[in-house]
């Protein structure tokens, strides 16, 4: 286990504090972020109303009335206490994906950029072991690391106005899943039939920070059977 260096605690505004664990995207730094994140979900800090975890940091938003220095001290204390906690074990999550065809409209584009045929792209995309670094940006959006770099493909030059919920795509060296229908510029290679995010149950994320995920290729029949409607 990597040694836990003391993170930096800095005001980000007069009502927020950033706790910074490092300057890199790595599993080691992620473990430190995740341990603290896990701890504060269980033991909320007085005066904190929102937490924004990311690759190497956590941002804390304070209450209107909270003192900046006082809350920063509480956050420091909480971090100290969290280092005594054992790192929670990663959940293993399988994501079924129907690759290519009408659900993977940009398969040809990825093929052209990578020089790989669709069968090889699907094989390599399925072959990776992925880590969910955090959920951020928009509701339920997972930041997933671990894609085979040979699949790297630049974003579309003109983003689509509407990408369906569950779309699986590639943007440069990242792969991702759109939890909700939204505009987007990722290269679409497939679609998952499962609900990643559901407004009636917002805390019930299928893919969560710290999860280890595997993409599993499914047939159209299996896709139709597994299909969950996003509300």
């Amino acid at each position, binding site marked *: 286990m990597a040694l836990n260096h003391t993170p930096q605690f800095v005001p980000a*505004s*007069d009502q927020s504090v950033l706790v910074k664990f490092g300057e890199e995207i790595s599993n080691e730094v992620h473990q430190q972020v995740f341990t603290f994140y896990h701890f504060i979900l269980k033991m909320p800090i007085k005066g904190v109303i929102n937490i924004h975890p*990311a*690759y190497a940091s956590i941002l804390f938003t304070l209450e209107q*009335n909270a003192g900046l220095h006082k809350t920063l001290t509480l956050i420091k204390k909480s971090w100290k206490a969290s280092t005594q906690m054992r790192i929670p074990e990663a959940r293993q999550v399988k994501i079924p994906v129907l690759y290519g065809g009408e659900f993977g409209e940009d398969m040809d584009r990825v093929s052209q950029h990578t020089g790989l045929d669709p069968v090889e792209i699907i094989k390599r995309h399925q072959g990776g072991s992925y880590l969910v670094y955090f959920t951020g*940006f*928009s509701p339920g959006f997972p930041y997933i690391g671990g894609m085979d770099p040979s699949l790297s493909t630049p974003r579309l030059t003109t983003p689509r106005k509407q990408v369906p919920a569950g779309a699986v795509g590639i943007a440069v060296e990242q792969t991702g899943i759109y939890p909700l229908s939204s505009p987007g510029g990722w290269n679409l290679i497939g679609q998952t039939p499962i609900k990643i995010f559901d407004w009636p149950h917002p*805390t019930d994320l299928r893919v969560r920070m710290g999860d280890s995920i595997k993409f599993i290729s499914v047939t159209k029949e299996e896709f139709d059977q597994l299909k969950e409607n996003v509300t």
Partner: protein
Amino acid sequence: MSLEILRAGLQTTVQDLGRFGAAHLGISASGAADSLSMRIGNLMVGNPENTTAIEMTLTGDTILFHSDAFIALAGSKFKIDLDEKPFPFWSGTYILAGQVLTIGPTLNGARCYLCVRGGLQVKKIINSASTHLTSGIGGLNGSILKKGGRIAFGNLDNMIQPIKNMENFPSTDTTTIRATKGLQWDWFDNQNRKLFFEKEYQVSTLSNRMGLRLSGQSILSSKGNEIITEGMPLGAIQIPGNGQPILSFVEHQTTGGYPKLANVISADLYKVGQLKPRDQFQFQLVEFPEAEKARLEQENYIRSLKVHYR
């Protein structure tokens, strides 16, 4: 008891003070763009500060009241008539069933709030009724109010005495917005920092509740324009590759990848909510203790209203 939209304004939404405790799920707070005005408006009708109200932008709505109501308008002054007679602003007023409130264009800033005694009865998601337009949730079907939209009101039971005859209102001057050093302050050299605080910026027409795009002096970063994605504070001033600042606002993304040069202080966020497209203003650098003092003073001001005017 209910009200009905006869004519929709430009961008009218149902808001409270925001949806907190869900940033780790990728959900930003949303909430009133000028929360200070909405809190005062609620106090004027005897509502708790966080009561659900209506936020109007640039041009308001025509609203028919199907029942008697006690209402107040707060924020920027808009042209307002009740059954074609001028209607008071910043004042709790009784109106009768069947009366029509016509809220026209703004006479000053971007936003005006309609607070109704007893609050609006709107389904809450994660403890908040706030509309989040980018995500399409909250308020009435996650959208702006439309003609024919009907909202029930008056369901609250924890009412207080309305405050009356207010004298000191929040300043409506938006020509100076104060800011503290941002998380990537050291990505910018002295010359660029100086330019940023010396020059005037104009609010672009591409601005919305998610963020305000500013046009004016380009700011150059000495370390590039991409950071390792990290949490985004409300009011962060980000510098993308084209050097034109983007100010993160109430519907901001929970995390972001542009360097942040500065951050609007909490006490001036309400002013950002009153900025209109093409408004000009200047940033002023302040230190953290001063910013925090201003925030706590604003909280004391709200508290004093409750004590003095009860």
